[in-house]
C-alpha cells in the first residue's frame, strides 16, 4: 500500500517544471501519493480550470472563447462529480497535499495574469494558458496520478478523463490557430 504522506523533492521539482506557463518538461522520478492525495490533486486540477473559465465568462466578449469556457466549466464539473461519487463510494476523503497546494499557488498567479488583461489580449492569454494548462495536466495525469493510484476504479476514472483533456487541448489549439490568423 502506498500511503506515505510525504512528497519527495522530486515531486516538487516535477510540479514546478510541469505547471510553469507553457512548460511540459517532466522531471525524472515520481512522488509517492496516497489515493486520497491523488483524488485531491485531481479535483483541484479540475476546479482550477473551472475558475479560469469563470474569469473568461466575466471578461471575454468573443463568442468562440465564451462557448469554449462554458464547455470547460461543464466538463470539469462533470469530472469532479464523478470523482466525488467515486471517493464517497470508496470511503476515501480527498486529502490536501503538496501537489494540490502547488497547483493552487500556480493557479493564483495565472488568475492574476488573466485579470490584468482585457479585450483580444485577454482572449489570447486565456486560450494560450488553456493550451499550456491542458498539456501540463495531461502529462501529470498520465505520468503521475494514474501510476500513483492504488485503487483500480480511481485509476480507471483517471484514464477515462484523459480523452476529454486531449479533446479540450485540441479544441484550444484550434481556437489559438484561428486567432493567430486574424
Amino acid at each position, binding site marked *: 500500500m502506498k500511503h506515505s504522506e510525504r512528497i519527495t523533492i522530486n515531486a516538487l521539482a516535477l510540479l514546478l517544471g510541469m505547471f510553469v506557463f507553457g512548460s511540459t518538461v517532466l522531471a525524472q522520478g515520481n512522488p509517492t501519493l496516497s489515493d486520497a492525495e491523488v483524488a485531491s490533486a485531481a479535483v483541484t486540477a479540475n476546479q482550477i480550470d473551472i475558475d479560469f473559465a469563470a474569469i473568461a465568462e466575466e471578461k471575454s466578449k468573443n463568442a468562440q472563447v465564451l462557448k469554449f469556457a462554458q*464547455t470547460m466549466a461543464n466538463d470539469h464539473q462533470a*469530472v469532479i462529480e464523478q470523482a466525488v461519487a467515486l471517493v464517497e463510494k470508496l470511503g476515501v476523503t480527498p486529502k490536501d497535499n503538496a501537489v494540490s497546494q502547488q497547483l493552487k499557488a500556480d493557479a493564483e498567479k495565472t488568475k492574476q495574469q488573466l485579470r490584468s488583461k482585457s479585450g483580444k489580449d485577454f482572449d489570447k492569454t486565456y486560450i494560450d494558458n488553456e493550451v499550456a494548462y491542458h498539456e501540463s495536466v495531461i502529462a501529470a495525469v498520465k505520468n503521475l496520478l494514474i501510476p500513483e493510484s492504488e485503487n483500480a476504479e480511481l485509476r480507471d476514472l483517471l484514464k477515462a478523463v484523459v480523452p476529454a483533456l486531449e*479533446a479540450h487541448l485540441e479544441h484550444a489549439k484550434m481556437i489559438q490557430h484561428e486567432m493567430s490568423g486574424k
Partner: protein
Amino acid sequence: MRRPILMTKRGGVLCCALMFLTGFSFSGAGPVAKTHRVEIRQMKFNPSHLSVKPGDTVVFINLDMVTHDVTEATGQSWKSPPLPAKSSWKKVARTSATYYCSFHPVMKGAITVK
C-alpha cells in the same frame, strides 16, 4: 342471387394480379428500416462513418461522463439537444450528412445514405 365479382374465384385472381402489377405487397412497402447504433465514448463517435438506407434510424448513445451533442456540419440542417451522460437521441436518416459535437468540435462523424 349473383355474388359481387371480388367474392368470386375469378375476381380474387384479378385482384391479386392487379395488386402485383401496381407494386402493392402484403408485407408493406420495401425492406424493413433498420436501427443503427453510434456510441459516443472516449470523445469519439463510434463508428465515425456509417452507411445506412434511406429511412433507417440512427441512435446516438452518450457513454462519456461529459455532455455532447450531434450537430449537422453546416449547423443549418439539424442538431440534437445536449446529450448528458448515459442519454441518447435518434434520427431517421434521409440524406447523407457530416456532423460534429458543437461542444467539442474535434469530434466528427458522417452518415452516408444510399
